[in-house]
């Protein structure tokens, strides 16, 4: 199997991984750090990639694990602080779309850790099969989960009077 090219991988997935990390942390600087950490790991392990899954699946799995490990080891940014940060930001934003995006991040951040990562991938149009592989659950189970997360997220969003 030909060795995947790091540079093109970086170009193709940088923004997606950043969005995933952003959905997870809700904090841009932290998301950038996690994205950086993810790509360092990708670079370190690229030679070991055997092609048993899609390259994107493998990369997302690294990103998801990086995010989950981050929270387990750090746990220093309580949700309340982040929510406040977002709300303040949302109030400052003059643009309605940006306000909605910021609010969406606040809502995503109220979900459970893994749910945040799953819904971020769903919002980014990643296939269910791929998400199931990334998080390591069956596709059937994932569908049920996604259905519940979607409802939860829309209801949180509705509570903010945005739908």
């Amino acid at each position, binding site marked *: 199997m030909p060795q995947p090219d790091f540079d093109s991988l970086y170009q193709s997935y940088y923004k997606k991984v950043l*969005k995933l990390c952003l959905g997870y942390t809700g904090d841009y600087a932290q998301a950038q750090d996690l994205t950086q950490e993810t790509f360092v790991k990708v670079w370190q392990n690229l030679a070991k990639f055997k092609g048993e899954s899609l390259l994107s699946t493998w990369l997302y799995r690294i990103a998801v694990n990086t995010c989950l490990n981050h929270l387990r080891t750090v746990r220093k940014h309580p949700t309340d602080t982040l929510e406040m940060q977002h709300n303040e930001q949302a109030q400052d934003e003059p643009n309605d779309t940006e306000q909605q995006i910021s609010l969406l991040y606040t809502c995503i951040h109220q979900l459970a850790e893994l749910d945040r990562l799953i819904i971020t991938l769903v919002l980014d149009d990643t296939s269910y099969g791929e998400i199931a592989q990334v998080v390591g659950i069956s596709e059937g189970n994932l569908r049920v989960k996604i259905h519940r997360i979607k409802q939860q997220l829309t209801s949180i969003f509705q509570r903010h009077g945005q739908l």
Partner: protein
Amino acid sequence: MDNFDHLKQVWQQQIIPAQTINPAELNKDNVDHQRKLERTQLLSAIALLLTPVGIIWMGFFSPIHFQSTLTYVAIVLISAISATQGLINVGLFVRLRRIDISMSTTQHLDQWQHYYAYRKQLIRINLPLYYLLLNGAFGLYFIEILGLMPLAGRLISLGMYLAWMLYAYFILGKRTLRKEQERIEIIIHNLQAIQHQLHSSADGNPSK
């Protein structure tokens, strides 16, 4: 429109700002890592070069007199092996010092990639060989020393020695190597990021 579709639309409207890296910061980070790598090699070299001094003194200039010639051979071997390893560390230190941050990013990256490849090859050959030779020499040394002890003493001494060697090789050694490898990889990754940004700017596409 379905409520969730609305959220998806909102999500997909977001503009992720272009990745901005600060080359000065990354270079500073690299210099820090380089200095730490150099310091590790230098300290190891000093320790390994001083060890034979003590061992030779103990074997040939102290009041201790060994009965067997084999023990003296072992002392010379242990000293020579430690000194050789110390010299290898000096060589690595010199190689690291020669890596020049003032060169272009591409050349600098190239230097680190060469060093990384060389280091990996050296670790693969040098490390097992060093432990094998050192333990062989210690084996010779133990023939006389352990022969002077009662059985329990032999077993305890040998057990302690083996435990220390295994700990040094599989835990301490591996941990140190892992840290060293991580530092080199971070340096290379930082340089790749800088290079990537430079290429993007040169192509007139800063928003990669």
